């Protein structure tokens, strides 16, 4: 009988597992990745992809147009930076970012409470703190798709067109500013959108709440500053403006609120982030998972 030495059984059925386990870090990573997949509709039916694809398309559309203009315009007829610089790019996609944040956080947080996954997750090595960490990473990274991706695309497009930053040092400095700007815009919106999503078990309510907070805050701030004549520092209440104002400061521009110091703009963003995170932590510490 001819016996081959390389024979092996590939399907052994259910067997005990004695290998390594990744612990809490692996659990956080897995929940973050799966939450991002859920938000983007990956591994889900086509209908769940419609809104994220639309939001991403809106965010990346202007970048593609700007790069296209840069590439197709003859010679030096048009300086692409005259069309849109990196700081002002966010002005074109503000709505897409806000809508995306209203989509992402409710999907990531509310769904788990509604479909029983929260109790399932908390029966794993995760506890409430590590679970929320995983979810914040997921929301932040997913928002990064629209806050970081398009400016990086613009940078790469301009660079390949020969109209990007001069020299490696400038190029790296621009990339760094893009990164910090993306994180700055994502941080406050992540915290506030998660806070809204922690307060209701309805995704639609959470989404509406996020949009209302973002859109109502500048109206309130304007009423206080321009209507009631209070200090311009009340503009710090404007969640709609402060993240993008911080982006202007990162690029060394005066922005739309020159009366505010950069420290105040940074403080406003930190304030919104801390308030959002505090609400999420408070809400989940009070949540009764099971009896």
């Amino acid at each position, binding site marked *: 009988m001819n016996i081959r030495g390389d024979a092996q059984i590939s399907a052994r059925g259910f067997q005990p597992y004695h290998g390594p386990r990744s612990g809490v870090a692996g659990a956080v990573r897995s929940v973050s990745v799966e939450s991002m997949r859920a938000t983007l509709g990956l591994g889900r039916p086509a209908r769940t992809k419609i809104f994220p694809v639309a939001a991403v398309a809106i965010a990346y559309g202007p970048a593609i147009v700007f790069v296209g203009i840069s590439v197709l315009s003859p010679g030096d007829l048009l300086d692409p930076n005259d069309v849109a610089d990196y700081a002002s790019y966010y002005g074109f996609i503000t709505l897409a970012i806000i809508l995306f944040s209203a989509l992402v956080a409710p999907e990531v947080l509310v769904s788990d409470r509604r479909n029983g996954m929260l*109790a399932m997750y908390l029966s794993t090595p995760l506890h409430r703190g590590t679970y929320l960490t995983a979810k914040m990473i997921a929301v932040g990274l997913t928002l990064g798709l629209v806050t970081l991706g398009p400016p990086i695309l613009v940078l790469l497009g301009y660079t390949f067109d020969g109209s990007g930053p001069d020299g490696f040092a400038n190029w790296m400095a621009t990339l760094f500013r893009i990164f910090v700007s993306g994180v700055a815009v994502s941080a406050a919106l992540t915290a506030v959108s998660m806070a809204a999503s922690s307060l209701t078990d309805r995704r639609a309510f959470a989404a509406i709440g996020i949009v209302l907070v973002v859109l109502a805050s500048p109206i309130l701030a304007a009423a206080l500053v321009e209507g009631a004549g209070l200090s311009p520092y009340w503009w710090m209440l404007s969640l709609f403006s402060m993240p993008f104002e911080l982006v202007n400061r990162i690029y060394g521009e005066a922005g739309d609120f020159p009366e505010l110091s950069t420290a105040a703009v940074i403080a406003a963003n930190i304030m919104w982030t801390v308030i959002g995170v505090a609400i999420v932590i408070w809400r989940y510490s009070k949540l009764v998972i099971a009896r």
Partner: protein
Amino acid sequence: MSPIIETRGLVMEFPSTKALDGLDLAVPPGVTGLVGANGAGKTTLISLTLGLLRPSAGSISVLGLDPGSDGPTLRAMIGYGPERNVLPDDLRAYDFVRHLAEVKGLPRDEARSRASDSLYLVGLGEERFRALGTMSTGQRQRVKLAQAIAADPKFIVLDEPTDGLDPVQRDEMLNIIRQVNREFGIDVMLSSHVLEEVERVCDNVVALDHGTLVAQGSMDELAGVSGGIEIELVELADRPESVDQIERLLREGGATVDRAGTVFNVVGAADDELFDLVAASVAATGGRIRRLAQRRRSLDDIFTVHADSGSQPDGGTRAGARSSAP
């Protein structure tokens, strides 16, 4: 053999109710049935076991660890199948099981292969790529079992795993649970309000009522002992009073008689004495026996005795149906 779960004076109070009241438990390895009516405290005990709740007083240890302080380490060794039948509808069964196996710490490739293996084990091999929302209740219950075992836990906790299943599906689910314990050495605690299935599949029983312990021990200890004698008498046309006379004589002889028509459940001190008493009573009245059998005490009897002793579980409904706890 060290217990899987051990509690000492375990108390769990919520603002409006005391769900567990001074529970002293020692759950040995094997398949353990956690029985009791709705509100008995089963789900609270499960939540404490998993560290989802902190006890108001007393202590609990699971696999020798404190769920409060050693939660992440402990929960990596426990599988959990919740009672809720609400799962992410859009997710495929395979992705659901794979993801939770990863969260339990398995490497990605291992989680993938074990997701398929565990779904095959529970009989969903061909269905594993279907979305959970398109699955029947029975299939979803199997998916919950598959995800509980996929990461090869030492111990799994299943909350009402047969809820919503028809009799055939229930039998299949119980067989799989038994198989998981016997073939793979995974200890199981399953909560149920259906006593028959606990009797059928479990080695040990913990019975709760309104947060207190009704009984705990092995099935042999609790339900294997005699439950008395069941006799069915013939109603004679020429001596119709003999049935009543036999009942009276049995009671006078010190037996407890639960009568339904001509069928008596007779419970007394010892079976030998009961047989003698029955024989003497029938002979004295000239009656006739159609059927006589020794009864095996069931979990239902345990709950019935508990209900008779004062407490009325399940909102005052006494254990009547053989198929469910009081």
